[in-house]
């Protein structure tokens, strides 16, 4: 365990993980890794924006298909961009677009990658990683 590189007044692990979920990169910024935070913010937001631009669908919870539930859960892992998309009504999905499935892939992968970032923040906060 090596906490010497972390700021002494760092936030709690739970707060940092919630922040990392809400805003991609925020957890790393709170733990003194601004470069990683900026890269995560840019890349994950870009992926979500590309998914919307490609005609991908922002999946809602509900319906009989379990895969749709999994896709919705993965997209909600991105936090604020997903909330903004829900409020603004983006992501209706253009099923006849050639890039529809690519758009879905970008939206889902962006959420799953943010999950990895949240787990990385958890490791930073608990001292498993410095």
């Amino acid at each position: 365990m090596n906490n010497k590189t972390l700021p002494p007044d760092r936030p709690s692990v739970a707060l940092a993980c919630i922040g990392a979920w809400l805003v991609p990169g925020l957890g790393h910024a709170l733990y003194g890794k601004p470069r990683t935070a900026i890269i995560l913010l840019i890349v994950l937001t870009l992926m979500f924006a590309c998914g919307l631009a490609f005609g991908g669908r922002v999946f809602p919870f509900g319906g009989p298909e379990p895969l749709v539930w999994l896709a919705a859960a993965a997209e909600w892992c991105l936090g604020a961009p997903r909330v903004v998309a829900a409020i603004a009504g983006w992501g209706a999905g253009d099923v006849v677009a050639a890039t529809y499935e690519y758009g879905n892939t970008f939206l889902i992968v962006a959420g799953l990658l943010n999950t990895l970032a949240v787990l990385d923040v958890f490791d930073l906060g608990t001292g498993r990683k410095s």
Partner: protein
Amino acid sequence: MSVHLGVMVLCAACVSVVFAVLQRDEPAAQARFAAQTFAALVGGGLLLGVLQYIFFR
């Protein structure tokens, strides 16, 4: 074809960058890891495409 390939390359690039910044600490190691991951993802995708073309067309 070029659109499909371009989108795959874009997705692979984004995934590679995120993997690299999460898995490595030093910028040089991050760049090397990102390049390796990118090559594996794109190469794997192309290989699977060729195999599908050969066996399932």
